[in-house]
């Protein structure tokens, strides 16, 4: 018994520490452990883009997708959003076709149009031939697309030309095309020597080099009146500025801050009241064990919330639903144990023995119930879409925690308190419902 009392005190202290952690990290606005709220609760915009990989060879797709992610991340950062999230997703083969997606979460942004404008236009790197036409006294320059775009660019690098005059090494931009791009580039340059091949980024000419000679081999050097800084910027823009594959906006959603705030307030309120009602019911029906279950449940909640903060799990409306169901499961494990214990008490066993046997007997049902739920949860997470995954993740965590809390916490607390013999007040405390023994 002393052993169980020590364990019980440790468990209580641990629970209080966890609750303290959950509370203080939430009260401190600068803490890294505040709840991460999903866009449906915090407000914000989610954009889902489909990457068009039809022009990309299959073995280059994974690379193209991560390059795409890098580009979009950079654009998002320029857009000035706190804690943006850019993810890629490859829709699995269930539907037969694979689809590459890019998911952009912009917390706090509710203006979809501005967000789409900043990210969603397919900004491209293009090479255009400049032709000059003279009409009367005005010269007009028109640019003709060559079909050579950023899709064919493998990389760009900054280099300093080994100029004839020592000390005057001019900054140059080196372009590396992939094989298809190299062929195209050679064709263009061989046919248009002496013309200007302008480089356009997002429709703006950023450099207008003149073709000196036909360029085989897929490498081009842009020389010009570059300052070192301008050349470096250009290299950065070329490397990161153009999308490797075209993207189209497939779905978008935004939740205004008022709706999200109301949802949180109502959700927290319902959670607290719901928990209080459940605890009251447990205490009213199961008396002392009910009180212990309520304490164990409070610890369970503190633990779950701490885990959600530490991992961190992004809380969404469906995640909160998962949390509520898993609390129900945790209650159920306790109810199972108490009902079993009560049966043993009825057969005249002493309280401690009854608690021991009650736990042992309830174990198989708890095990099978939790295991099936765990398996279901894992499958849902594996197969589900993001909203189902939000539910499944919290549900799986909750089932695991319930497993631990029911078979260890409630047991330790009960064994720390109940005596060997059933007498006096213990008769009442260990009984349940409307019966008096």
């Amino acid at each position, binding site marked *: 018994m002393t052993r169980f009392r020590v364990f019980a005190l440790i468990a209580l202290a641990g629970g209080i520490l966890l609750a303290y952690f959950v509370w203080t990290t939430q009260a401190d606005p600068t803490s890294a452990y505040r709840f991460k709220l999903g866009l449906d609760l915090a407000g914000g915009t989610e954009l*889902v883009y*489909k990457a068009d990989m039809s022009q990309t060879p299959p073995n280059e797709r994974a690379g193209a997708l991560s390059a795409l992610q890098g580009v979009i991340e950079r654009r998002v950062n320029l857009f000035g959003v706190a804690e943006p999230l850019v993810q890629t997703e490859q*829709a699995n083969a*269930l*539907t037969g076709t694979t*689809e590459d997606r890019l998911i952009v979460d912009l917390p706090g942004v509710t203006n*979809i*149009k501005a967000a*789409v404008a900043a990210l969603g236009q397919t900004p491209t790197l293009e090479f255009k031939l400049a032709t000059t036409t003279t009409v009367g006294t005005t010269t007009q320059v028109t640019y003709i697309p060559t079909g050579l775009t950023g899709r064919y660019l493998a990389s760009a690098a900054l280099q300093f030309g080994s100029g004839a005059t020592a000390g005057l090494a001019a900054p140059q931009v080196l372009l590396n095309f992939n094989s298809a791009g190299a062929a195209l580039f050679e064709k263009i340059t061989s046919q248009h020597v002496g013309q200007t091949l302008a480089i356009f980024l997002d429709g703006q000419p950023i450099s207008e080099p003149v073709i000196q000679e036909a360029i085989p081999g897929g490498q081009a050097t842009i020389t010009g009146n570059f300052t070192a800084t301008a050349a470096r910027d250009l290299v950065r823009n070329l490397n990161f500025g153009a999308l490797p594959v075209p993207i189209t*906006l*497939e*779905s*978008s*959603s*935004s*939740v205004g801050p*008022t*709706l999200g705030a*109301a*949802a*949180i307030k*109502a959700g927290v309120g*319902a959670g607290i*009241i*719901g928990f209080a*009602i*459940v605890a009251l*019911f447990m205490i009213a*029906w199961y008396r002392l064990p009910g009180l212990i279950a309520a304490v164990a449940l409070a610890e369970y909640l503190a633990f779950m919330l701490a885990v959600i903060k530490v991992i961190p799990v992004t809380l969404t*409306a*469906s995640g*909160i*639903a*998962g949390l*509520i*169901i898993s*609390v*129900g499961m945790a*209650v*159920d494990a306790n*109810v*199972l144990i108490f*009902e079993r214990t009560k049966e043993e008490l009825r057969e005249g066993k002493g309280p401690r023995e009854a608690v021991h046997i009650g736990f042992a007997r309830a174990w*198989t*049902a708890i095990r*099978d119930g939790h295991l*099936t*739920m765990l*398996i*279901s*949860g894992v*499958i*849902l997470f594996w197969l*589900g*879409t993001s*909203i*189902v995954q939000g*539910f*499944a993740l919290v*549900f799986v965590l909750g089932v695991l925690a319930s497993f631990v809390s029911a078979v260890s916490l409630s047991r330790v607390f009960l064994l720390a308190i109940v005596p060997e013999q059933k007498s006096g007040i213990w008769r009442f405390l260990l009984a349940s419902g409307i019966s008096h023994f």
Partner: protein
Amino acid sequence: MYIVHHRKLFFWITGIILAAALGAIFVWGLPLGIDFTGGSLMQVNYPNGRPALSVVEKQVATIPSLGASSIRASGADAVSIRTRTLLPAEHDAILAALSKNASTTELAYTSVGPALGSQFTHKALWALFAVVLVIVLYIAFAFRKVSRPVPSWGYGLTVVAMLAIDLIVPAGFYAALCHFTGVQVDSLFIVALLALLGYCVNDVIVIFDRIREHLAKNEKTGLKEEFEVTIGKSINETMTRSINTALTVALALLALIFLGAPATRDFALVMLVGIVIGTFSSIARSAPLLIPIAKWFNK
């Protein structure tokens, strides 16, 4: 023993409830929301009071080539407008049209491409199917030591038969809810069904676990007991637990219905119906269903 003796009555009650639910689903249908079909849904609030819906309809109709749209009231001062998948410019045009004569704020906007929608349907169905399959396998495994008078996979099949009804009834309820309030099937509804799946399996496993325990004990002591008696005993012994657990979860859900966010209200309602029917069916139907199965196997 009451339930076992009157199991035919309970099978009939189940049949009637099931028929009503199926009727609701077939007559009214489950209107699929944009998560499944693709489309756009916007929720716009009028802080100074909502104009008549016909006014809003006229304003939306000014957008060219929009096709059919559905407009309904939402909450006290807001409307929700459902259309085909909108381009960002069209979305802006609608907002501008709505704001012509009144001040508006957009509460939420969702737009789902048709391809994404059909993929969600696929995935949701696969997930449901996979979960059910694994449950049968697991239960067959967990009950492998008790194969008389019902083979262990018989328990698994019974659970699946029960789950089918446990999911059809809340779906029927939702069909009625959709019909009368105009809501649509969204992904939260699927989440509710999945959660119910977990709850109901756990519920029936507790009863089956008791049957398993009695059968094992009888085998050890050499007691010849009618299968009906074993089942009746198991149901009675687990009934308080089944009801108490359902009651606690129902209390939590009631808190969610009356105090929770509007977004989760329909979810909680479906869960509540599902838990009531799930508890009824695990007590009154799942274990009694084993009796005819046992008779069939021991012919």
